[in-house]
């Protein structure tokens, strides 16, 4: 029984279509990561120190700001202030930045710490559940005292 030429042609066309689909899938796999790279998903954040002073009631007030190209990464970022001593560390204050990225944190300056560490944790700012979630990268600033 010989094969029907019409059916053979159909089979060949099917194979060709499958190969084309496979090639397209491979191409998507190759191009995919490239386009993801082009889409900026994480935004750098920097903590800048402004000034510090001891208040009348022996509290130290530190002023600074969070710098980031995206407004969502500057506004209302929680910043923590930790005092580092030779024998340990203590979280002294925690507060959000202002709408424009400024913050001021205060705490008791007695005993005087060796270092003051400011930390702004990573923040997600795209709506949850969306595939292209954006991230403000975390930032850290170590301020040596004396």
């Amino acid at each position, binding site marked *: 029984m010989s094969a029907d030429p019409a059916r053979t042609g159909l089979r060949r066309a099917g194979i060709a279509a499958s190969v084309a689909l496979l090639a397209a899938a491979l191409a998507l796999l190759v191009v995919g990561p490239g386009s993801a790279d082009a889409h900026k998903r994480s935004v750098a954040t920097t903590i800048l120190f402004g*000034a510090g002073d001891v208040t009348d009631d022996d509290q130290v*007030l530190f002023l600074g700001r969070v710098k980031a190209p995206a407004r969502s990464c500057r506004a209302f970022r929680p910043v923590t202030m930790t005092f580092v001593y030779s024998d340990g560390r203590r979280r002294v*204050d925690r*507060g*959000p930045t*202002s709408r424009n*990225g*400024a*913050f001021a944190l205060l705490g008791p300056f007695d005993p005087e710490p060796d270092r003051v560490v400011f930390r702004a944790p990573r923040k997600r700012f795209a709506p949850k559940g969306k595939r292209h979630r954006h991230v403000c990268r975390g930032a850290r600033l170590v301020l040596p005292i004396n």
Partner: protein
Amino acid sequence: MRYGSRIGEPTTAGRRLKRTAVAVLLGSLAAAAAIGAGTAVAHQVSFPTDVDVPFELVPPSETGAGLFAGRVTSPRSACLAARTVTAIAVHDDGSRRVVDRARTSANGGFGLRFDVTGVDYGILKVARKRFGPKGKRHRHVCRPARISGRSGGGM
């Protein structure tokens, strides 16, 4: 044979019961009034708030963004954290605009950053805050505060 008393004619036991009920009612009313008055006097429901800007970093030419460090003080610690602070800039031409908004830290600190170009003076407003148990009767209030001043002159 008659059981009980006629309608409108109280028995001795009934009279005694009525007297006891009246006494209990009066006693509880007096106690409630005494407790109520006592708590009203001893129980403070609103607390004052003060706001201060100890220092600021304004560019020498007074152009560009200035950084301001502020502090909220209150006798009640619950009135320090998470207070909303609004900075309003009043320009030379009299127009006013909200230039920054912040929330205080756990210890009452807040920072502000805004463009000081053409600003005559600034106003800082700390909003009223309610705290304490949920429900309408026992709410406590941190009173609002407001200061104004010129940049460089201390607010």
